[in-house]
């Protein structure tokens, strides 16, 4: 079962997350577990919808960056619809750039 994947599911990435280790209750939880897994010498992957990306800003900026823990590989869905996803969808790629998150596999919904 040790697939080193931690996150919160999204229907848009469900084909990539059939082999996960733990489906977490929150994206912050996934990020904190992934930090521990990296400290244990492994390379974790996290997965989430872009709404979750907005939730984890603090863990990126006050856990990963100051301790110089490499950001895990991120499997991310970018949603634009229905309407409540529109605003997060518009800024998601800017947020990734601001966080300097390089290792990202994106599944993007049509606008």
């Amino acid at each position, binding site marked *: 079962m040790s697939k080193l994947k931690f996150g919160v599911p999204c229907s848009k990435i469900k084909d990539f997350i059939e082999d996960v280790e733990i489906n977490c209750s929150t994206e912050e939880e996934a990020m904190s577990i992934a930090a521990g*897994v990296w*400290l244990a010498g492994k390379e974790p992957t996290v997965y989430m919808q872009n709404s979750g990306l907005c939730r984890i800003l603090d863990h990126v900026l006050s*856990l990963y960056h*100051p301790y110089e823990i490499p950001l895990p590989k991120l499997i991310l869905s970018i949603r634009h619809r229905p309407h409540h996803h529109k605003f997060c969808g518009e800024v998601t790629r800017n947020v990734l750039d601001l966080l300097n998150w390089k290792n990202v596999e994106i599944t993007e919904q049509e606008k």
Partner: protein
Amino acid sequence: MKRIDSIKQIMDNITDELVITSTGKISREVFNVKDRPANFYVMGSMGASLGIGIGLALHTKRNVHVLAGDGDILMSLSTLVLMNKLKLSNLKLTILDNNCFGATGGQRTCSDAVDFTKICSHNCKVISVEPIESGVPRVNLSHKEIMERFYNEVNKK
């Protein structure tokens, strides 16, 4: 009991466990009581300490002991539920409960409305401590130094 006296008792009995401490004064007090490379002081990212402990316990054989405040655990209460679900034999949590946000002026938390050991009955202990600050100095190490020596300790051959 004062929190720092509780921490002294805990750290007196620590041998080779990895110790993860939550942000704020708990990290400061553990640093001043018994600093060691196997301690990881979470300075910032409130709510992250137990998740870090779970990640470590999943992928090392070492015993992991998380020392967290009530505010830290309340901020990521779902992770306490996850701890109860996973029941990892090498993970232990001690919640030092002062019923307040000690680092920000002692504002009350909601911890008096919950029994953490009913949420997590596996290796979870709550110690009620007085809301009195010891005034010990800050952790005198950079984040990077803490990470590097801890990483080397966990991953030594």
